[in-house]
């Protein structure tokens, strides 16, 4: 762990004078997006394309008695009205379970509901028409008779014997339970001088990608091949699942992913309506387009975080934390999502609570229950915000009990920076983290002592400001341990192919995907650095199962660490091959040569020897002039997957400075700081912007975002006017700092950075609000921290 870079020997190809690694350079191809010339799925039009609109259940739980589509079918422009039963002829149902989540159960789910609907928004019929507005008109003419059933909506009573079982064949509403007992928890609590307990409540919220989910599926009956245009994070996963359920070979399915209008985990899943679109294209033998409208997005895009977690912490008078204990409950909707399942978030909570700290005493229970609400699944920073809010909330409660400063108690308990490698009580293995260095850096950035003085001075003037601190760990670079071992065909390895074109430029195909993080940029930066080629001469192709190597895609903060390493290794092979050819042409040895400035140069003095353009001309058009026996290979492919560590953990710490108005309950965010350690920084600006964007999503959860369901399972705020998200006016400036501890598992040394911001933001804000409200004796452990929640805690309403 250093503030500078890692050993120059290990990074020889990257740590060169003209290297792009560690440099802020603009992402390629932004002009396309800024000029309105991108290609999002909603922009795609194909010959003979028809549009589908889904008629969706208005009830949370109901039997479908009958569907009468006769009138709708007679309307002009209507191509078909298809029910679940009819669609089942071309697509099979699925069950969202994985074997490594022991005991996880779920019921078969269909692309379109058959006989019964289990949440408000589940599709009951597909209306296919020549245009979307015509299909929407016809949807109103489809008559569905429902027999309403009792809806299971409160997770706290989902397991009671008096509560109906949503899927009787499963026996109860318990989807998954995990228990963990590490160390000697009872003794540790007995040994504590103080014990603090609280129940932490997390609002159910969602990703709200600005571009709604959209699919164009094009079954070409003559080729017997399905092309799926979809803004997915994982094209090969979609290929596998579509083929599996349509009875096709994977070679019969191509997935193309162009520009994606926001994803954040929302678009890493496969939704029932998307499956229906694939199936409709096959059934109707023509391209079918589906673009969700905003109401559909709120009702069907996965929700996340609906947890109630009881937590307990033991602490000694000197600040030593003796134990953590949690009991987490979460409601996931009526089905475990497919194919990643809906047990991962609760599982992560169990894994991550207490993660930054030294105590080995930890007991956890997590229960995942079914409900008649929209499905829940993995959204940016899966489980982390919950684990972090519970852990950091408990640490602050413990600090308050013993009258210790929140920073001091953390410094006393954070794992020492020289203690690595080590493992957490839940079995997580940490290669190298930097909690203390990060905390030191944060203290300097925010000038903690001055801020405390300012807070005290303002309190005398009745201005209530608070400081909140939250240390965190983040799962990145997942190996097969995440999904593969459980039987999911979701690749954890990624591949990159690099080739020199006939004018000495570079074409690079990668299996990671781009949703705006900068996958294209980091790939071009790495490849350009290794090959001595300027970035504008590197073209990166991604998001097409026909035209990229096989791989996982971009999710779980894996693109830079895994896809980046594959790019590095592929480029190194190509570099060697280029130098071999160059040595033959120049009648020298490869060791005497180097690549720089789009040319082969002398390794010693950097003098140009032959332009890559000229080398490519010789190889491709005058191979007859090469010495006998030389067969140049100006294309190289490498794949990479982490093998030593299941996950490359990162760490960091966040701080929030805010003001609470005790009369209105309104929180004003004044400043936010993050120090994080994602190892090698490939492009510092892109890392910082991932952190900032992630923080703001976490701030949304902290203050605004909540899917409000009534007791009948009706989502009451399914529009952007009523579901509040962070807007520019309410957001603070966010300062980002770094500590750099590269992973030794790769030559690149990069770990992920996409979720760190979201992981700790809400915890920092909640701790800051409680810090601000300390004079009032109020402690709030619920988010979002709306004015109503705050005024209620203050006893003012």
């Amino acid at each position, binding site marked *: 762990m250093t503030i500078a870079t890692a050993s120059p020997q290990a990074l020889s190809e990257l740590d060169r004078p003209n290297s792009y690694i560690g440099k802020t350079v603009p992402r390629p191809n932004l002009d396309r997006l800024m000029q309105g010339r991108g290609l999002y799925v909603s922009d795609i039009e194909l010959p003979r394309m028809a549009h589908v609109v889904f008629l969706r259940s208005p009830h949370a739980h109901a039997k479908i008695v009958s569907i009468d589509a006769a009138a709708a079918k007679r309307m002009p422009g209507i191509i078909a009205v298809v029910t679940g039963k009819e669609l089942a002829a071309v697509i099979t149902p699925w069950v969202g379970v994985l074997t490594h989540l022991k005991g996880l159960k779920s019921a078969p789910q269909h692309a379109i509901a058959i006989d019964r609907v289990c949440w408000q928004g589940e599709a009951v019929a597909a209306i296919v028409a020549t245009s979307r507005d015509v299909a929407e008109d016809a949807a109103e003419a489809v008559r569905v008779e429902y027999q309403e059933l009792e809806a299971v909506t409160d997770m706290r009573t989902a397991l009671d014997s008096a509560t109906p079982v949503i899927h009787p064949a499963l026996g109860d509403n318990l989807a998954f339970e995990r228990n963990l007992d590490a160390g000697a928890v009872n003794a540790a609590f007995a040994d504590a001088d103080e014990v603090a307990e609280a129940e932490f409540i997390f609002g159910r919220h969602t990703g709200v990608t600005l571009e709604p989910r959209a699919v164009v599926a094009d079954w070409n009956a003559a080729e017997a091949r399905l092309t799926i245009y979809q803004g997915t994070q994982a094209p090969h996963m979609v290929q596998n699942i579509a083929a599996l359920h349509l009875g096709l070979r994977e070679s019969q399915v191509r997935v193309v992913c162009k520009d994606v209008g926001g994803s954040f985990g929302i678009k890493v899943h496969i939704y029932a309506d998307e499956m229906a679109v694939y199936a409709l294209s096959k059934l109707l033998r023509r391209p079918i387009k589906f673009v969700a409208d905003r109401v559909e997005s709120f009702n069907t895009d996965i929700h996340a975080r609906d947890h109630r977690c009881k937590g307990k912490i033991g602490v000694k008078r000197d600040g030593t934390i003796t134990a953590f204990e949690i009991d987490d409950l979460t409601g996931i909707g009526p089905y475990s999502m497919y194919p990643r399942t809906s047990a991962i978030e609760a599982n992560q909570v169990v894994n991550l609570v207490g993660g930054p700290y030294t105590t080995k005493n930890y007991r956890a229970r997590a229960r995942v229950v079914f409900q008649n609400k929209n499905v829940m699944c993995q959204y940016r920073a899966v489980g982390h915000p919950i684990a972090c809010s519970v852990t950091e909330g408990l640490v602050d409660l413990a600090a308050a009990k013993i009258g210790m400063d929140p920073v001091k108690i953390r410094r006393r308990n954070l794992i020492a920076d020289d203690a690595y490698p080590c493992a957490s009580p839940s079995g997580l293995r940490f290669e190298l983290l930097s909690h203390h260095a990060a905390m030191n850096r944060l203290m300097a950035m925010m000038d903690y002592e001055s801020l405390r003085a300012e807070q005290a001075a303002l309190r005398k003037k009745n201005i209530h400001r608070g400081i909140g601190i939250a240390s965190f760990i983040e799962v990145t670079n997942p190996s097969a341990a995440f999904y593969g071992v459980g039987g999911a065909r979701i690749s954890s390895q990624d591949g990159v192919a690099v080739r020199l074109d006939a004018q000495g430029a570079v074409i690079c195909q990668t299996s990671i995907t781009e949703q705006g993080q900068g996958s294209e940029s980091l790939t071009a930066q790495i490849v350009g650095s290794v090959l001595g080629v300027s970035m504008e001469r590197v073209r990166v192709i991604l998001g097409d199962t026909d035209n990229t190597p096989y791989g996982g895609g971009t999710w779980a903060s894996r693109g830079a660490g895994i896809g980046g390493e594959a790019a590095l290794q592929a480029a190194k092979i190509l570099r060697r091959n280029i130098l071999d050819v160059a040595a033959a042409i120049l009648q020298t040895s490869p060791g005497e040569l180097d690549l720089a400035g789009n040319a082969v140069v002398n390794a010693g003095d950097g003098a140009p020897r032959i332009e890559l353009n000229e080398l490519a001309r010789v190889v491709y058009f005058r191979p007859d002039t090469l010495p006998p026996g030389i067969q140049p290979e100006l294309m190289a492919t490498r794949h990479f997957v982490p093998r030593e560590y299941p996950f490359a953990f990162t760490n960091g710490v966040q701080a929030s400075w805010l003001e609470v108005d005790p009369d209105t309950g309104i929180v004003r965010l004044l400043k936010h700081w993050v120090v994080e350690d994602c190892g090698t920084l490939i492009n510092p600006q892109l890392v910082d912007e991932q952190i900032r964007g992630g923080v703001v999503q976490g701030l949304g959860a902290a203050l605004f975002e909540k899917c409000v369901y009534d007791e009948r399972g009706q989502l009451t705020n399914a529009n952007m006017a009523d579901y509040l*998200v962070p*807007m520019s006016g309410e957001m603070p400036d966010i300062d980002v700092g770094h500590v750099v501890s590269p992973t030794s598992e790769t030559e690149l040394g990069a770990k992920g950075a996409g979720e760190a911001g979201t992981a700790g933001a809400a915890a920092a804000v909640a701790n800051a609000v409680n810090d601000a409200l300390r004079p009032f004796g109020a402690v709030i452990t619920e988010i979002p921290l709306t004015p109503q929640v705050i005024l209620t805690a203050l006893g003012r309403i």
Partner: protein
Amino acid sequence: MTARISITVEVNGERVDAQVLPRLNLADFLREHLQLTGTHVGCEHGVCGACTVRVDGDIVRSCLMLAVQTHNASVQTIEGLSDSGEIADLQTAFRDRNALQCGFCTPGMLMAAQDLLKQQPEPDREQIRQHLSGNYCRCTGYQAIVDAIETTARVRMGGRP
């Protein structure tokens, strides 16, 4: 549904004659009839700002305006503003500052930013944040966007980037 209505509208400097249904909104008209897909539809109820275009010089939510209301009007979209070079400096600042990630909000964001800079050549950060408060960005957290607009304003006033 009633009969189609004839409209004549100038779009990015070109005259367009079209027959449209009265219920067709301007966003759908631009995207589906004129294939100007740079105007994005995010919420279809006037909240997110992704569909922001300029009509007779003022920015409007094209999902809240009917195509027929633009009869005899002049409409400018992100494609037009890009081709004319009017916002080239703003676009450069956005690129250099990485003020966009997925890019879906960006056309509307650029429209709103240019509108602000025309009204208020030297906005402070708070004014920039307030002016953008009707444009939803889910990726950036807004800070980079505010930075890019601040830089553009400074350069336009003769300062350094």
